[in-house]
């Protein structure tokens, strides 16, 4: 340690001695003499650093989700992982019984909390007429404030959610509803229910997966089903201090931890019978068939980055996405570093004489190395200053912050300052180390006598650096183009129905028997072609149920169920593959006609599906016989990330319908939506409706990919910009070195074409080599990214060539000015140059 400090102090002394100051003055003069290169160096490095800093801030924010809760390392959410009927499923929702029902089997549980979200908005009548958004209205247990670290500003955290009809408002909602103070006030909601404001909580921090605006005691709502196998709410556990959540179970089963094993055992003791009944299989039989149903835990702080379950509370970020963005930013800073190193080596040629003379006058090798390093560090830190200015201006307006609004960039930068300092330092060292050691290998006599060798020296290495830069740029641009092609594909692909011109109205449960009137009302509107009802729509399909194939009733198969009216297929423009779309509700009490999709026919192994039967268990004793009346061509009712699943569509009573879908004759305009809204508000003033276009609804699936794409586009631009800046200056320097040669060639009769070829040939050769190297890397990365989609665009050479040609053209434009200038100069000027 002492030796290290001694060495450090010696280095500092050297840095600040007179000779070093002299070096720095000369270095600064040198830098400022070549203003264009200085600008390119500083600006290129600043843009690269700004990208890296912005991504670092973004990644930092994303990795700090839900870490502010007390004992967050012991705070977990339970989820279900199952494979039933051959279909694997991971769902975030659990039964309401889990929270307290399993405590006796798992003594390590210290506290539990349930969070339930209604599927419709709640209209507020008093004090102001408004809606409490279903997405931000959480029904929670009274333990909410014990488990989570949200700050209650007014009210008692222990009791505020104890009683039914208690509501805790976030500060912003409280201000909106009761500007004069909300605590103790009454909110009258639909059906004249009165909720008392028992607390005011801080607005939900942006870095939490629980996106709340209002919290209502869970006892205020009648939960749909209290069965152990009814899954619809989230369950959180806080475990006791010292609990090892990673300890493996004594008899390892599907990688369960000891705690998860205890939870499962408790669940099976409580709900094994229910599960067996609904599955039609015993647990033993399930295991024999390689099927399972287990409970797993995930830390709350891991949810945002790692959890991608069905029925997530909010949309989480994919860690893969984060890695892509981080990777791109590293590549960009490397491109900027290469620029710097490349230009520095090239620039050394102009300083060979200075360094040679310094050596003759007695300058030590170490001092000269330090000088060159000091120069690159100076540029690096000047660049950091500009990088911070860029971050300050750009970051608040980028897509990165749109996901976490209100993040304070200054405090984040302060927190990250040691890392930023290190990045800057190492950027300076990496960029300066090669030039420093390159020139110092030679003796003063060699340097002075072979100046020409130096001016063209390092050409091979510079070429390699240019290749690396363009490989990085091509990889980034091709990957971005793949992301964009896939996004366009998911937006335009035929999903098996005509997705345009469809408007879905949600929340029509309140209509009850009034459906025919409702339809008539809508049909009166301009441009409306048809209206259909269903309990699910593509993008919002209900859960699965266990069925049995009529030919083999021993097998239990899990299939998605959907309930529609007979106009559904016409409204959605679906194609019939076999049979007909005419559904009869119930033929007899226990028999009904159904339509299945093509995937279901495959899944059930039916050769002649029409007329085949499927059995569906209803409760303990009753079984429905489903007769296949028609087969609908496959359509994507979930995202394109997953393969199309087997689906049964049947016609049922209208009491369970949730959605009405309107087909318009033309593209849906804002006017159409406004007209529907006004019409419904007039006809049904008490029912709060919501509408969304089918395209918009399906677009929700690809929100994350869309933002990745946007970020990638911005960074691709930076990458190619920095690379081209490097190319420009490199050509400029190369041209300077070759000025005399150009003159000679001109004198010998070289024309414009020959000179253009001469100067550009080498650079284009380098870009072409980069193109060949980048090809497999780009394909591999794109393949890896596309793999997340069950349906995706194909990768072909034509697309790559298109990107390559585009980069090539940008490169041509970059060097055009330089070439033009050189070629049009007088050969006399060139020959005078030396």
């Amino acid at each position, binding site marked *: 340690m002492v030796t290290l400090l001694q060495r450090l102090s010696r280095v500092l002394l050297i840095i600040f001695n007179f000779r070093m100051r002299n070096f720095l003055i000369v270095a600064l003069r040198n830098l400022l003499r070549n203003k264009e290169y200085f600008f390119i160096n500083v600006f290129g490095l600043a843009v690269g650093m700004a990208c890296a800093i912005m991504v670092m801030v973004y990644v930092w924010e994303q990795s700090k989700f839900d870490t502010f809760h007390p004992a967050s390392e012991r705070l977990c959410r339970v989820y279900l992982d199952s494979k039933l009927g051959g279909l694997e499923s991971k769902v975030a929702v659990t039964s309401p019984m889990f929270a307290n029902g399993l405590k006796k089997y798992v003594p390590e549980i210290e506290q539990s909390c349930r969070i339930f979200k209604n599927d419709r908005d709640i209209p507020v009548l008093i004090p102001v007429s408004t809606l409490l958004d279903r997405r931000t209205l959480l029904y929670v247990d009274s333990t909410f404030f014990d488990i989570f670290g949200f700050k209650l500003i007014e009210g008692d955290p222990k009791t505020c959610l104890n009683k039914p009809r208690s509501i805790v408002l976030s500060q912003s909602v409280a201000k909106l509803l009761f500007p004069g103070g909300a605590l103790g006030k009454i909110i009258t909601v639909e059906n004249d229910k009165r909720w008392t404001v028992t607390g005011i909580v801080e607005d939900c921090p942006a870095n939490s997966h629980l996106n709340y605006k209002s919290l209502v005691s869970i006892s205020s709502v009648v939960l749909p089903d209290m069965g152990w196998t009814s899954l619809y709410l989230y369950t959180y556990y806080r475990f006791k201090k010292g609990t090892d959540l990673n300890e493996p179970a004594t008899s390892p089963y599907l990688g369960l931890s000891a705690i998860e094993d205890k939870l499962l055992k408790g669940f099976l003791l409580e709900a094994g019978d229910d599960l067996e009944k609904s599955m039609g299989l015993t647990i033993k039989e399930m295991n024999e068939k390689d099927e399972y149903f287990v409970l797993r835990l995930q830390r709350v702080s891991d949810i945002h980055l790692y959890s991608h379950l069905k029925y997530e509370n909010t949309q989480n970020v994919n860690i893969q996405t984060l890695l892509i963005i981080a990777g791109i930013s590293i590549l960009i800073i490397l491109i900027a570093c290469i620029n710097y190193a490349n230009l520095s080596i090239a620039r050394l040629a102009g300083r060979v004489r200075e360094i040679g003379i310094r050596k003759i006058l007695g300058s030590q090798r170490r001092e000269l190395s330090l000088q060159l390093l000091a120069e690159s560090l100076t540029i690096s830190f000047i660049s950091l200053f500009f990088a911070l200015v860029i971050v300050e201006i750009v970051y608040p307006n980028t897509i990165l912050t749109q996901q976490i609004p209100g993040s304070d960039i200054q405090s984040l930068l302060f927190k990250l300052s040691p890392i930023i300092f290190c990045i800057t330092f190492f950027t300076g060292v990496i960029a300066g180390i090669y030039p420093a050691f390159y020139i110092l290998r030679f003796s003063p006599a060699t340097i002075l006598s072979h100046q*020409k060798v130096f001016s*063209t020296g390092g050409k091979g290495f510079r070429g390699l650096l240019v290749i690396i830069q363009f490989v990085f740029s091509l990889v980034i641009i091709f990957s971005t183009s793949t992301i964009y092609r896939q996004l366009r594909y998911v937006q335009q692909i035929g999903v098996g129905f005509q997705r345009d011109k469809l408007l879905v109205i949600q929340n029509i449960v309140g209509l009850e028997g009034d459906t025919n009137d409702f339809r008539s009302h809508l049909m009166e509107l301009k441009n409306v072609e048809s209206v259909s009802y269903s309990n699910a729509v593509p993008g919002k399909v209900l859960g699965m149920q266990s069925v049995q194939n009529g030919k083999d009733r021993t097998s239990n198969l899990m299939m998605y169920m959907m309930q529609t009216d007979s106009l559904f297929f016409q409204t959605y423009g679906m194609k019939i593959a076999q049979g007909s779309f005419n559904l009869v509700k119930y033929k007899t009490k226990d028999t009904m006609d159904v339509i299945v999709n093509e995937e279901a026919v495959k899944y059930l192994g039916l050769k002649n599906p029409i007329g085949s039967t499927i059995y569906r268990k209803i409760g303990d004793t009753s079984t429905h016989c489903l007769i296949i009346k028609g087969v609908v061509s496959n359509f994507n009712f979930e995202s394109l990330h997953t393969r199309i699943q087997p689906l049964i569509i049947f016609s049922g009573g209208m009491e369970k319908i949730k959605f009405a879908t309107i087909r318009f004759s033309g593209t849906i305009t804002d006017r159409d939506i406004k007209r529907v809204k006004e019409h419904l508000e007039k006809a049904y003033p008490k029912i709060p409706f919501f509408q969304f276009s089918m395209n918009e609804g399906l677009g929700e699936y690809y929100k994350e990919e869309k933002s990745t794409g946007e970020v990638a586009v911005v960074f691709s631009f930076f990458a190619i910009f920095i690379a081209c800046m490097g190319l420009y200056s490199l050509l400029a320097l190369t041209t300077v070195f070759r000025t*005399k*040669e150009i*003159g*000679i*060639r*001109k*004198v*010998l*009769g*070289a*024309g*414009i074409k*020959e000179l253009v070829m001469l100067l550009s040939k080498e650079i284009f050769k380098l870009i072409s080599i980069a193109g060949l190297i980048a090809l497999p890397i780009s394909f591999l990365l794109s393949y890896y990214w596309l793999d997340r989609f069950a349906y995706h665009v194909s990768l072909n050479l034509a697309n790559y060539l298109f990107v390559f040609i585009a980069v090539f053209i940008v490169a041509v434009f970059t060097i055009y000015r330089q070439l033009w200038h050189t070629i*049009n100069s*007088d*050969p*006399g000027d060139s*020959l005078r140059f030396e």
Partner: protein
Amino acid sequence: MIELIDIGKVFKNKDVETKALSNINLTVSQGEFISIMGPSGCGKSSLLNIIGLIDSPTSGMYLLNRKLVSNITERDRTSQRKNNFAFIFQSFNLIDDLTVLENIELPLVYQKIPQVERLRSVNEVLERFNLKHRAGYFPNELSGGQQQLVAVARAVIARPKVILADEPTGNLDSTHGEDIIQELVKLNESGTTIIMVTHSLMQAQRSHRIIHLFDGHVVTETFSRSINHF
């Protein structure tokens, strides 16, 4: 063949204007061997560059083969240069990255002569100048005299009408210098017009006419030997 009328050349550098040449009037006939002499900085090389269409005059008229070339475009100048002139420089001006053979071949490449023909010509010239054994060498592997010999070989290969030599022996010892002058005399005797800038009166006396320059002006013109007209 070459007619310069009131040629002037001014170099501008930031705020400073330097008059390199003023009111130069000169006529050069085909087959002449002319030497230009004068102290350093008197404008000898500038004059040579203007004659060779490497540089353009600031004022005056330049007629080449009775055609006005003082204000033509760079493209036309390239074409005229290619068809009429060849250059020999004091600092040789060979391209370091090219071999002796490639350096000599270069003017033919720009004249788009087919490769087979090019190689034949290059071989002839290499033999003539006794450079065959150095064909694969790079310029920095040769002595100064050999480099200048390569430059002369490069100058003659395209059979130019005029050879412009800017102090061709300035960087050479007397023996090598004499070799080069002899080559130039031979070339002139075979009909090539030669305009040479030199500091050596002895070498200048091998030409037909000596032009003395001082401060950008032609001060005297002396005839040293008669022209052998073809």
